[in-house]
């Protein structure tokens, strides 16, 4: 399905069709209701809008450009590939759009302590950054396995004055960090603002994060019209929790544009080591909302796997589940190996080092471009830069196989 005529989700209770909602303990319910009220009030408030826009332009570095990737296009041998350059924002990923928005909201609400969970560390760095900017206290929960995989980002958060709290429970990755952040929030809910990093979690987080990220798609639309005189035929983004994807997709939902989300297939969708939640998961409730999740038949959450810490999550934002079910977005997969090949390819063809997360989207873009006509246009969200992944990728390449 390429276009739908009306799209007005979520409903007033935060439901995207059967997905979304708020599934949290009673201790957190009043805080979530308070947040929803504040979010609705300030998103329409002129001072808030002015402050937000100023920060996005003068601090985060928006608008980010779209770059025509001519040598990558040549390599792929088909459609023209454009990159939406979220890697050029301050802190090097789209995450900053959302953390500026949420931290500003915290400030307007009079809360001076931020907490966050992080997988790859990009959201943690972005939250630590705005905490420093606003003079707020900040704690970031991070799985111990991810701390090992993403050392430079851990150093960055500490330098920025945030406390990084290692989480050893479970698999020591993003899902466990999120459990721990929810626990901490339950204890300190009256004074603490929880900055969720993706379009996941209980309502209003999925819609609020989408609102803070939709600028990616809005800018891209105008930029493509300026560059090519028309919208792209296809837009592509990687999906872990799915915030850069929702950011790019949202403004295109009612346009005649093909939309593709790319999940991490890890070692393959025929193995248990993947993070392809929308492709292989089933409906469940995790971390406050109903969505597709990777689970066994008893409803126990399974471990996800991806070479990229940012995609290594057994859940996904509820709006993606809905967009999949109504057929508006097609969700495909890319393996660890596909992503590393795409990572190396972009480095060598364009002089851009992409994040491993974004490399999944690039892998799908290269694959798709090769099948298309030369005057087709594909726009890929380059959600972040890959400096954080250098050591990890170097080790993988050294081990061989890539």
């Amino acid at each position, binding site marked *: 399905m390429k276009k739908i005529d009306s799209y007005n989700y979520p409903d007033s209770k935060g439901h995207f069709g059967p997905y979304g909602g708020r599934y949290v303990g*009673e201790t957190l319910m009043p805080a979530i209701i308070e947040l929803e009220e504040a979010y609705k009030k300030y998103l329409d408030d002129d001072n808030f809008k002015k402050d937000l826009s100023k920060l996005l332009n003068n601090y985060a570095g928006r608008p980010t450009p779209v770059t025509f990737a001519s040598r990558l296009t040549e390599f792929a041998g088909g459609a023209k590939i454009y990159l939406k350059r979220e890697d050029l924002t301050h802190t090097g990923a789209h995450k900053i759009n959302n953390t500026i928005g949420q931290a500003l909201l915290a400030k307007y609400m009079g809360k001076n302590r931020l907490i966050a969970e992080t997988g790859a560390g990009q959201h943690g760095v972005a939250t630590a950054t705005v905490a420093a900017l606003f003079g707020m206290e900040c704690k970031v929960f991070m799985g111990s396995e991810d701390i090992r995989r993403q050392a430079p980002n851990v150093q960055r958060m500490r330098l920025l004055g945030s406390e990084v709290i290692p989480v050893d429970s479970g698999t020591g990755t993003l899902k466990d960090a999120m459990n721990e952040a929810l626990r901490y929030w339950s204890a300190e809910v009256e004074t603490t603002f929880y900055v969720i990093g993706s379009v996941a979690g209980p309502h209003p987080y999925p819609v609020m994060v989408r609102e803070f990220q939709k600028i990616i798609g809005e800018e891209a639309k105008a930029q493509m019209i300026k560059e090519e005189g028309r919208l792209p035929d296809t837009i592509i983004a990687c999906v872990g929790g799915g915030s850069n994807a929702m950011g790019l997709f949202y403004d295109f939902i009612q346009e005649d544009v093909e939309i593709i989300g790319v999940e991490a297939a890890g070692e393959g969708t025929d193995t248990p080591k993947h993070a392809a939640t929308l492709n292989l998961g089933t409906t469940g409730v995790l*971390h406050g909302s109903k969505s597709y999740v990777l689970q066994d038949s008893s409803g126990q*959450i399974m471990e996800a796997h991806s070479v990229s810490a940012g995609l290594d999550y057994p859940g996904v934002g509820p709006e993606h589940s809905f967009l999949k079910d109504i057929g508006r977005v097609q969700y495909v997969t890319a393996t660890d190996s596909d992503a590393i090949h795409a990572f190396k390819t972009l480095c060598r063809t364009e002089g851009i080092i992409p994040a491993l997360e974004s490399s999944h989207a690039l892998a799908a873009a290269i694959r798709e471009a090769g099948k298309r006509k030369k005057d087709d246009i594909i726009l890929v969200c380059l959600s972040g830069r890959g400096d954080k992944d250098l050591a990890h990728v170097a080790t993988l390449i050294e081990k061989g196989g890539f």
Partner: protein
Amino acid sequence: MGRITESFKKNRQNKSKALVGFVTAGDPDFETSKKIILSMCYAGIDVLELGIPFSDPSADGPVIQRSSMRALKNGMTMEKAMDMVREIRKHHSIPIVLFSYYNPVLAYGAAKFQKDAMEAGADGVLIVDLPPEESEELTSQWDDREFPLIRLIAPTTGIERAKSIAAGAKGFLYLISKTGVTGSGGLDTSKTGEYADMVRKVTDMPVCTGFGISKPEDARALAAFGDGIVIGSAFERAIEDNIGKSDIDEKLAAMVRSFKEAIK
């Protein structure tokens, strides 16, 4: 009248307080767990809160998380939790409240869950991450037999919201005694007591307080403000400390007796 309501009514008539005991079904393994639970029932808990483990218990602290992991590792499932209820029912008429997170219940099936739980002999259920706003999708699939979905009220719940939660509640109200997760420290009994008093002014429902009660003196202080108390992590900690010991059931029974004594 269901077993839960009857138990609280009897306690009110006798001017005694209820001890609600939480244990994870299947921790550390099915047989030991059954032995522990029965021994706690005989030692005098008034209501059994039987935990069905979930892999991601974000409203619980580390003690209950570890107990859930042990139970899951040893093969605990919803089906086996139903078996556990049947086994207990063979020996004891204690009111049994199942406790879980929403996902395992959703995976099992809403209608099947009520049917099987009631047939096994359970009397109600508490789903910690299913607030009133979302619970209709579960209860609308239930038949009209009395099977209370126990409601929670937290210290962060404003009194108006507490009133509306109480209005739709059945069985008893679970008053969370402190912000945070189960088993964590920092309980302020006088502050909780004041809040419990306030809640009791807006409802006639039996009110039990729980979260963070580990000592008999805290149990005594909080029992005075309501109809009973809930103890979970303290029992689970004792199970963890006595795994492999042959008198594990007797250790837990002794704890039950000391808490019962404290809240007399």
